């Protein structure tokens, strides 16, 4: 039982990161009908921003009191978010905007190309081996009823959930969110109603990429490393979450992200880590056979 609960907790932590990245795929698709395959690489850029900042500060970080380390931690999240948002906006302007209105494959291939370029660009600068990122938060374990987790793991879960609650508020509680949903329903009619679809596209790319950047920072800090190709596995898992959950509901993607994380953790705990990745793709196969639009529904693909 102890092992079971421990694995569920571990799964929720990693699953929350999947969900955050999956939401970015889903949000961008619903607004622009574009599959942004460079999205997980934006998370990777966020991770490297944490590496850069910490390596510059490396000497000064040592020996800081915990309260200041928490400030450094928050600063890293901010830098990751800004890095993500900036890369997202550049991507929107240079790659996604020119491919709007064309077949889905055009943007799919263009953004996948950008992803490859980013991975190899980072390799060229920092090398292909993972770089070390210090764990900013204390590494002692919190033990609650025999379940162990680190402050960093707790922070990852809290930050991911907070970002999703914030995004849900944005989409359902603000006027720009209303415009976002209107565009997701019928982009041309929304434009004729006076909505500047370009502004909404930029907001969407900025917000979802900022979230990916922050997720990249939390992943780098919990794994104490970043690598040029860390986006690949993350991206695949998140992609599966988006397909399985469907891109219509934030809650749906969150649920599937957490579920997938837990399923992987349980398989790793009880069977073998070798079978872990099979979980995501078997889940995807079964769900797409039965419900091609995902469990909770998707916005239609353009013809």
């Amino acid at each position, binding site marked *: 039982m102890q092992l079971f609960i421990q694995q569920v907790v571990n799964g929720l932590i990693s699953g929350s990161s999947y969900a955050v990245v999956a939401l970015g795929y889903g949000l961008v698709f619903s607004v622009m009908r574009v599959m942004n395959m460079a999205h997980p690489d934006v998370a990777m850029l966020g991770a490297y921003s944490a590496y850069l900042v910490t390596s510059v500060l490396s000497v000064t970080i040592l020996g800081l009191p915990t309260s200041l380390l928490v400030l450094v931690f928050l600063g890293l999240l901010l830098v990751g978010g800004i890095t993500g948002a900036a890369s997202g906006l550049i991507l929107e302007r240079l790659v996604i905007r020119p491919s709007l209105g064309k077949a889905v494959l055009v943007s799919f291939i263009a953004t996948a190309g950008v992803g490859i370029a980013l991975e190899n660009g980072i390799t060229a600068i920092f090398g292909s081996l993972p770089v070390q990122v210090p764990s900013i938060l204390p590494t002692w374990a919190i033990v609650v009823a025999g379940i162990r987790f680190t402050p960093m793991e707790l922070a990852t879960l809290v930050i991911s959930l907070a970002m999703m609650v914030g995004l849900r508020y944005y989409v359902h509680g603000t*006027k720009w969110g*209303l415009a976002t949903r*209107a565009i*997701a329903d019928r982009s041309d009619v*929304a434009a004729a*109603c*006076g*909505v500047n679809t370009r502004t909404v596209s930029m907001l969407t790319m900025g917000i979802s990429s900022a979230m990916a950047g922050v997720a990249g920072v939390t992943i780098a800090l919990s794994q104490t490393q970043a690598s040029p190709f860390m986006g690949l596995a993350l991206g695949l898992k998140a992609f599966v979450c988006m397909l399985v959950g469907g891109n219509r509901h934030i809650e749906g993607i969150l649920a599937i992200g957490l579920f997938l994380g837990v399923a992987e953790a349980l398989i790793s705990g009880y069977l073998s880590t070798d079978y872990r990745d099979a979980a995501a793709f078997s889940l995807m196969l079964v769900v797409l056979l039965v419900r091609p639009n995902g469990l909770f529904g998707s916005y239609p693909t353009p013809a």
Partner: protein
Amino acid sequence: MTGLPRRIKPADALLRVTGLEVSYGSVRALRGIDLQLRRSEVCIVLGANGAGKSTLIRSVMGMTKPALGSIELAGVGDLVGRPPHEINALGVAWSPEGRLVFPTLTVEENLVVGAFPVWKKSIIRERMDRVTALFPRLQERMSQAAGSLSGGEQQMLAVGRALMSEPTVLLLDEPSLGLAPLVVSLLFDQVQAIKSAGVTILMAEQNARQALRIADYVYLLTNGEVVAHGEAAEMEQRSDVQEAYLGG
């Protein structure tokens, strides 16, 4: 007779379409359309499926890029080349063919999007009251998803959403499509009420009998060309119009 342009006093002219040509690939949807709107009238464009009515309306809204021609709005200039949200801000609103409400949004949210450039809640509320006074059915459905409304209700919502921007020109693309005759009659009464409030209406229709009842001026569109135009009362008497649109 099609060669003669419509004569409107310059002070009364609101919208002037000149030499409008639109192609989809090798298909020429509009072949040099000339059309004029007088302030505060209902002008209808009659034509069969594929005559180019929707293309004309979509071009005015900036949804379709014409190859040639101009669309002049009085006091503004050419609308061609401007994006739809800008054309909306200049006082043109559109109720699309097939209604196309935002299905996952509630009726109220649909109306709010219709007034998107307005941020002041009191103004939005005021306009919403005016729309629901015109279409009381929408009031009862306010918090329902628009996709769950009946066809007639969705059409009312599409028109109401367009009115939320307080347009000077209202474009109605086949509002009667797929609606029961009684519902169409009710809807056209409201179109007349909208006109009385000072809004100029350009309406594409196939339902000539009902549309002629509220029309001031009529353009006949065939294969992307204006083949005839005139005051509604005259057009109704023409034998070709009776044969083609009024069943002899």
